[in-house]
């Protein structure tokens, strides 16, 4: 936990259980709020929109439709917890996705094509990380360069969409592993694996602790932590996640398209923030980001069920984002007063 929270715990007086929980786990609150919103959304949709909203089919589709966003959000969580931001993820996803489609079209074996796109994503992340860490460039600007680079490269690969014929890639999407009415696709499994690995790394490894420490306090280097290496790594991780998302999205849509993912970086940031990660860095959970993605996906589903304009999704997500950052601001102000 961050130093702020330990300070909270020590100054805590005898209080009720709830208060104790609040002061000890203040960083969990936004995530819990996201869970509550998700549950409310489900119940509300079931009651007011249509009676058959909560079905295994619908919930399974939620994971399937948002697998790519889930992967991006995990990478974004790492970056935001260090206090950074990565605007390049949507473009990296488009670039790696279309490059994969082109490689496969040219007859490249999958065993080469997939590592190639992951390395490409990692290289964009590396560029951003090096600019941020070694040239003191603001993460926003550095990742902006990454955004431009990857978007342009996507168009260099192809100006129009490329259909994917490779059965191995389409298999990722078309295979449905069924348990009763529930189903999961290999893309969904991949996304969940990324979430699990991400959550494990953040909670139980030295690397994860260092990531929290960097966001909590830029002077973490004094504690003997490997700050430069970790800062660069989080951007590389985000880049690799971008590559994986490119693979998943290409499988999902059956084609690579250079205009994919315009604005997806904003969706990913919104999902991460709604999931309870503090934009100032230092606090947040990978599992929270998963909840954030599901909130995003559920709102989208509800709006398409209601037959309303999809532009409402943007507006509602924007409003939710606003509520969450105001709440976050209040939490930070509160803990600053206490310490």
């Amino acid at each position, binding site marked *: 936990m961050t130093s702020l929270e330990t300070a909270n715990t020590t100054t805590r007086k005898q209080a009720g259980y709830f208060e104790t929980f609040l002061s000890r786990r203040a960083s969990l609150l936004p995530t819990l709020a996201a869970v509550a919103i998700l549950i409310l959304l489900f119940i509300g949709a079931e009651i007011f929109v249509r009676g058959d909203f909560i079905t295994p089919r619908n919930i399974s589709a939620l994971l399937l439709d948002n697998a790519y966003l889930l992967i991006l959000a995990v990478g974004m969580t790492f970056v935001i917890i260090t206090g950074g*931001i990565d605007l390049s993820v949507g473009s990296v996803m488009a670039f790696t996705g279309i490059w994969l489609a082109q490689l496969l079209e040219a007859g490249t074996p999958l065993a080469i094509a997939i590592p190639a796109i992951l390395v490409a994503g990692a290289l964009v992340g590396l*560029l951003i990380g090096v*600019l941020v860490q*070694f*040239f*003191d*460039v*603001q993460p*926003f*600007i*550095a990742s*902006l*360069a*990454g*955004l*431009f*680079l990857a*978007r*342009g*490269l996507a*168009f*260099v690969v192809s*100006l129009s969409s490329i259909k994917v014929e490779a059965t191995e890639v389409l298999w990722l999407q078309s295979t449905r592993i069924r348990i009763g009415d529930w189903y999961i696709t290999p893309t969904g499994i991949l996304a969940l694996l990324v979430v699990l690995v991400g959550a494990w790394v953040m909670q139980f490894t030295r690397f994860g602790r260092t990531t929290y420490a960097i966001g909590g306090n830029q002077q973490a280097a004094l504690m003997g932590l490997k700050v430069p290496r970790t800062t660069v790594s989080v951007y590389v991780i985000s880049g690799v996640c971008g590559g994986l998302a490119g693979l998943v999205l290409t499988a999902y849509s059956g084609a690579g398209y*250079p205009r994919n993912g*315009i604005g997806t970086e*904003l969706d990913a*940031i*919104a999902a991460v*923030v709604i999931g309870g990660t503090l*934009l*100032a860095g230092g606090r947040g959970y990978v599992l929270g980001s998963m909840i954030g993605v599901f909130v995003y996906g559920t709102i989208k589903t509800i709006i398409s069920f209601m037959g309303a*304009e999809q*532009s*409402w*999704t*943007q*507006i509602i*997500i*924007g*409003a939710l*984002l*606003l509520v969450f*950052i*105001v709440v976050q*601001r209040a939490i930070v102000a509160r803990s600053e007063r206490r310490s």
Partner: protein
Amino acid sequence: MKHRLFWPVAALVTLILINTIARSQFASITVRDGRLYGALIDILRQSAPLMLVSLGMTIVIATRGIDLSVGAVMAVSGAVALTIIDGSSDPNNLGVVLLAVVVAIVVSLLLGVWNGFLVSLLGIQPIIATLVLMLAGRGVALLITEGFITTVNSTPFEFLSTGYLLLPFAFFIWVAAVVAVGLTERRTALGVLTEAVGINPEASRLAGVRSRGIIWSAYAASGALAGIAGIIYASNIKAADANAAGQFIELYAILAVVLGGTSLMGGKFTLAGTVVGVLIIQTLESTMLFLGVPPAESPVFFAAVVVVVVVIQSPRLHRFMRGITRSARSRGSAEPSEDAGVAI
């Protein structure tokens, strides 16, 4: 060498020179029907939206902020203006067009005020505060146009972007905006106060600067200027396209501001630098078009430009260069070692 506009201007002149050498007609300007035509004139005309947005961005960046919502505000403004003109019985009526333009600018101003409220009063980080509107704004614009691309045929409205008074009318609009912003910032204390807020918000507050109002007005100005930009954009394509209007313009505007020599860390700003920065970007764009690079691929070059510029500005490189010159001196080398010439 020491003037802070030296490098941006040098870059612009070099770009124009390269273009003129590569194609002689680049610098030529022809007069037809009392109007000037030529590649350079085109650049002046096309830079209008980016120029207006970048002006506002300069002021916002000077207060240590950033405004990501400008593209979305452009979309809203275009949608508002065209919906009013489209809904009127006589789209060619000057009064209708004026009303549409004024309403669109007022709406954009209010959006800017909203951003300023989030940043100055609630104390939310500028990136995040303006991200909200960046996300939701396009949705609002789509709702206004009901999901369609509204098109109009209105001569007075089209005049804004394609009209001519010897020079393109859009050029006069941005020159007027530059002069207006320049006068308010530099002929009054506002500019100095803005820089004070950007350099040290706490110290300037203690010194009695009303930082809250200054920050607030910066975002409001940015919103209004983006609104005008959105109107010119819509007038140019004769349509309100909520998705394409101002796409990525926030990024180009930030790039223009940085190219012009205003630091992203806030504080000292230069409007003249921003003007040069915008012209550099527009000339680059025109160069790439000439080289046959598809417009869609141009971001790769802009990425390279961003990387070069931020690396040149980075304090670490400055330290490194100073280290080199110092060690060269201490070795007693006879070469006159100038201070690293990277002071943009």
